[in-house]
């Protein structure tokens, strides 16, 4: 293939056509543009006129250039130019495609598989046998087959949520020579170098790695009462922030996001931590943390019981504990449990109500019947009752003859003392914990000795109820199930009086084994040993939980090893349940580091993206076509036929300019902050703009006049009134809208209606004024009345009634019976009173209206006309005649004041009817 720089040509000999361009140049140059024939009567006047320039019968040079370029582009296009021609030398022999297939691959698995499929298809095209290997599988035979056989299987491959077993594969590779393409996940895994060596022994190796960063989440841990989440990343780059989401069931049991915290990776740091402070109730519900940015198993960290802080109730022997701190039986328990659990102390009946996980009774012998019943019920529902013996228990006769429900065994009278001054024998040490005991696996230190204890009656169940014993076989810890819960008795005290057990680390471990307290964040192998762990939920490579199904349990030792080294094929990540607790096996350990894979220089490493060979034929042909179109325009222009086109362009330009203001208006629809400020810094009366300049002017002047009167007479001090465009402006700022209705007012849009209805529902009031009470009663067919009906049809207006004589509007400030504006005595409609049964009881002077302000007041008295004043406060319009007219104006103002008071104080006046009753009550 002939190439020029990054461009190759499929049919290079066609480029010879470029030689013909100069010939074309001469040809084109010789032919002038064709003339237009025009019928034109004025030709009579043209006869005999000569052209000034003789040159123009040749094509202009730039037009020629344009055409040459077009032709050249066409020639180049047909020569088949290809950008980045694919020139890889075809390999030979079998091809092995190795895929890591680990959780880190899940971040761009589809692209990996695309690449793998492309490799398989390529090999198929070359007739090479091919095999695809997923390194997370168990080592097995590698069969080279035809590409067709592999094509379907490659598409079905999925990543696995553990690291590839590179070391295992190193010995399992097929013999013979083959070429290898390794689709690596980019992480350093142990054994990579060894496997690479083996592969290189058998042929060339090519590595393809994705440049996408890997993000992974470490298990969360506790530190000083807060949850610490940590994440790592590879490669280390600039500062970046990722979000960690904590998920868990809500109180309804539905999985949802419980908390969210931002993790900030500083530039150059591979690890970031964040603190999540949550209330224990919420924290205990968290089942998993996940990184929002990544969908891989590594970005998910399941939580087990380690995050749960249990509530433990400590009950001491009683109020007479005035001894030294160190002698208090609760002291050691507090010391052991405080860092890891929530402790509750108080009376037994109180703490049972708090539903603790564990109740510890330290040397409490006697329980009242109610306490005993409550405790029994609580244990039967799954509680753990842990009792410690002590002098009181030994001295009491609890469980002496009949086994107490809240004690696992019957007790012998008095107990025993060994190794004391008055007894023979040595203090007893602990026997090794028997298999089947929850303490199995713990090592009892030699220095733990028991000097005194209470003794169990040798009942038939004693042996099975004993979970720890002294080396002479005396039971030390006994346990019995009770309902869903259990009762455990430690036959020694919780302080160091009877034994040195509370002083040893074993005491804490035993408490942990009894699931009394939380365990350390990462249970060690020793903690897990000796138990069988059954997987409950498992993670797939994408971090999705799935049910474990039929998978069998695993040994604690194996699990312990996996905890340290990460999950494997045999032990997939997930949640494993033991007897008392659950353990999460996560992909990432607390200290796992993400390290980039290191490849020797001899191995070529490619990105996932392939520089696709790109055919440029289409682009060149398009360019040629575009140039030819330009040529058409230019030729038209040269020939003088473009005038019509020019006109078209001008028309389009005008249309564009005309379209401009609409855009500007659309922007103007945004809420106006200036208006909001003006309307909310003080009380502002507002009127609806009708579009009729005269009406709007009178409405503004009217509200100004009313505002003046409010300033003078009341504590309401409104600012200058505002005209409101209901289509555009926000209405919520105004407590009161005056709406003069004109006959030709446009019906508001649906959006405006929505706004108005919202306004009415949330306590706004609109005073509709048809201003025609002189010629018509309300509702009759005056033009304004019809306009009002039309406008109000879309409003959420409650049932109305003519204003009754005892309406609260008649007495909110002045006592009024009449509500004139410029027209006297037009009827006024307000929200109808509630139904008869809701009305006030006998003896109330006024009706007790419901708690609202009437949302609309409708009338036609032209109040604004009566209120209207000019700038210096002189009435703008005449009202009535002479003194009577001025009187009418005064009443109009009073109505306005009453109305504003009603709007601003709500049913305050209405409630005043109760004053006499209240005073009477106070007097008594």
């Amino acid at each position, binding site marked *: 293939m002939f190439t020029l720089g990054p461009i190759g040509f499929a049919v290079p000999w066609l480029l010879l056509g470029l030689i013909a361009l100069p010939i074309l140049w001469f040809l084109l140059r010789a032919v*002038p*543009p*064709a*003339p*237009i*024939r*025009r*019928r*034109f*009567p*004025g*030709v*009579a*006047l*043209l*006869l005999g*006129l000569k*052209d*000034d*320039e*003789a040159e*123009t*019968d040749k094509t202009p040079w730039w037009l020629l250039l344009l055409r040459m370029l077009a032709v050249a582009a066409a020639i180049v296009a047909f020569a088949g130019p290809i950008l980045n021609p694919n020139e890889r030398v075809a390999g030979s022999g079998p091809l092995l495609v190795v895929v890591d297939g680990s959780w880190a691959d899940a971040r761009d698995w589809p692209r990996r598989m695309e690449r793998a499929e492309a490799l398989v298809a390529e090999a198929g095209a070359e007739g090479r046998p091919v095999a695809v290997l997923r390194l997370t599988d168990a080592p097995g035979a590698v069969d080279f087959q035809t590409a067709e056989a592999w094509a379907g299987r490659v598409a079905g491959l999925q990543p696995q949520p553990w690291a590839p077993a590179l070391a295992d594969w190193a010995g399992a590779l097929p013999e013979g020579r083959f070429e290898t393409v390794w689709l690596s996940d980019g992480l350093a895994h142990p054994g990579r170098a060894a496997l690479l060596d083996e592969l290189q022994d058998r042929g060339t190796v090519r590595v393809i790695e994705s440049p996408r960063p890997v993000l992974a989440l470490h298990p969360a841990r506790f530190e000083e009462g807060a949850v610490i989440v940590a994440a790592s990343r590879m490669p280390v780059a600039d500062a970046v922030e990722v979000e960690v989401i904590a998920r868990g069931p809500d109180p309804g049991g539905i999985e949802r996001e419980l908390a969210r915290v931002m993790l900030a990776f500083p530039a150059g740091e591979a690890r970031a931590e964040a603190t999540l402070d949550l209330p224990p109730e919420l924290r205990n519900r968290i089942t998993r943390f996940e990184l929002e940015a990544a969908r891989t198993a590594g970005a998910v960290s399941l939580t087990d019981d380690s995050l749960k802080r249990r509530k433990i109730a400590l009950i001491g022997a009683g109020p007479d504990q005035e001894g030294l701190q160190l002698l208090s039986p609760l002291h050691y328990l507090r010391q052991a449990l405080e860092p890891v659990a929530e402790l509750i102390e108080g009376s037994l009946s109180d703490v049972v109500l708090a539903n603790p996980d564990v109740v510890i009774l330290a040397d409490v012998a006697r329980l009242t019947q109610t306490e005993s019943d409550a405790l029994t019920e609580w244990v039967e529902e799954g509680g753990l009752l842990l009792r410690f013996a002590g002098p009181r228990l030994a001295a009491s006769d609890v469980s002496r003859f009949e086994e107490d429900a809240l004690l696992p065994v019957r007790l012998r009278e008095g107990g025993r003392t060994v190794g004391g001054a008055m007894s023979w024998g040595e203090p007893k040490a602990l026997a090794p914990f028997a298999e089947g005991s929850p303490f199995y696996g713990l090592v009892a230190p030699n220095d733990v000795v028991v000097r005194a204890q209470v003794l169990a009656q040798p009942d038939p169940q004693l042996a099975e109820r004993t979970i720890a014993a002294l080396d002479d076989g005396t039971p030390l810890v006994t346990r019995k199930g009770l309902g869903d819960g259990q009762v455990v008795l430690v036959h020694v005290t919780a302080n160091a009086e009877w034994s040195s057990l509370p002083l040893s680390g074993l005491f804490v471990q035993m408490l942990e084994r009894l699931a009394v307290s939380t365990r350390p964040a990462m249970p060690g192998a020793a903690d897990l040993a000796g138990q069988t762990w059954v997987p409950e939920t498992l993670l797939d490579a994408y971090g999705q939980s799935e049910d474990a199904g039929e998978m069998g349990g695993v040994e604690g030792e194996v699990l312990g090893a996996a905890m340290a080294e990460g999950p494997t094929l045999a032990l997939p990540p997930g949640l494993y349940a033991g007897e008392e607790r659950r353990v999460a096996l996560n992909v990432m350990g607390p200290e796992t580091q993400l390290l980039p894979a290191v490849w020797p220089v001899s191995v070529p490493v490619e990105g996932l993206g392939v520089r696709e060979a790109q055919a440029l034929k289409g682009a060149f042909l398009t360019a040629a076509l575009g140039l030819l179109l330009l040529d058409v325009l230019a030729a038209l222009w*040269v*020939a*003088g*036929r*473009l*005038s019509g086109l020019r006109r078209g362009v001008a028309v389009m330009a005008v249309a564009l300019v005309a379209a401009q203001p609409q855009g500007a208006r659309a922007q103007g629809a945004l809420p106006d902050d200036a208006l909001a400020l003006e309307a909310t810094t003080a009380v502002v009366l507002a009127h609806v703009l009708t579009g009729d300049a005269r009406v709007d002017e009178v409405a503004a002047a009217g509200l100004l006049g009313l505002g003046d009167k409010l300033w003078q007479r009341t504590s309401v001090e409104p600012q200058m009134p505002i005209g409101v465009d209901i289509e555009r402006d926000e209405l919520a700022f105004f407590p009161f809208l005056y709406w003069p209705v004109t006959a030709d007012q446009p019906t508001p849009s649906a959006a405006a209606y929505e706004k108005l209805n919202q306004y009415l529902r949330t306590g706004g009031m609109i005073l509709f004024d048809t201003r025609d009470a002189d010629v018509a009663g309300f509702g009759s067919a005056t033009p304004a009345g019809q306009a009002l009906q039309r406008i109000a049809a879309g409003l959420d207006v409650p049932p109305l009634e003519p204003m009754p004589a005892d309406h609260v509007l008649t007495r909110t400030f002045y006592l009024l019976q009449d509500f004139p504006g410029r027209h006297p005595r037009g009827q006024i409609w307000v929200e109808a009173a509630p139904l008869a049964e809701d009305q006030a009881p006998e003896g109330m002077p006024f009706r007790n209206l419901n708690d609202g302000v009437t949302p609309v007041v409708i009338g036609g008295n032209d109040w604004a006309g009566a209120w209207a004043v000019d700038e210096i406060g002189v009435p703008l319009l005449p009202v009535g005649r002479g003194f009577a007219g001025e009187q009418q104006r005064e009443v109009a103002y009073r109505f306005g004041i009453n109305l504003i008071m009603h709007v601003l104080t709500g049913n305050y006046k209405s409630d005043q009817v109760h004053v006499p009753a209240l005073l009477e009550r106070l007097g008594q």
Partner: protein
Amino acid sequence: MSVAPDLRARAEALGQSLPPLLAEAEMLAATVMLGEHGRRRAGLGDEFWQYRPAHQGDSARMIDWRRSARSDAHFVREREWQAAQSVTLWVDPSKSMQFTGDKSRAAKGDRAKLLALALAVLLLRGGERVGLAGLAHPRAGRTQLLRLAARLSDEAAEAEYGAPETEGMVSHGRAVFLSDFLGDLAAVEAALARAADRGVKGALIQILDPAEEDFPFDGRTIFESMGGGLRHETQQAGELRARYLARLAERKDRLAGLARAVGWHFTTHHTGQPAQSALLWAYAALQGGR
């Protein structure tokens, strides 16, 4: 023949907005025809003028017996002398009048016919006699209008440019020539001379398309006359614009000069403008042409 009623309807519509056009008759004696223009003296006519005592030479038939019976003397009833004006219209029928610079505009010829017929409507309503030069003799009455409309819409000529027709022009009458006057001016000059010989006064209305007035052409162009008889090729039509406009202005000047010399009026009307303005002008020209 569907064109004629349409043309007539449009012409009637245009003519309705003007008061009846009363062309003044200058010369009474030559064309003593009864019309509606009172001559303020006794003569032939329909309207009563005066009773005068009969004197010798009056035939017995002339005596108004009813008036004479009321007195002792004999009276003759005299009627007012009324005369009508004859207006001859000439509309250029040549091919050049078929030109229009834009599809949305009417051709020049259409506009000329419309104007002519509108004028005829007005004149006929005023009682004048209107004819078409070479096609219809001047007559009065609404039937004449129908005849004129039919003739006008029939008319078409093979000539590239029209030469004014003076045949049928009534002496001392009035004449209106509607043409683009882009052809040979000698013919116009001759026609005007003949008209002047017969004492005919009138108006020249030059009807031009806006394209002819603006010359909005560019580039390599071959201009052809409407019949294809004349052609002119240019490489840069835009370069010719100034010279073309100069020649057009010169021609208008010459036409105006010719008209002035024989006491005629001259105007240029563009088909881009409303016809009303031209009709108003013609109204004024025929009325004020004394």
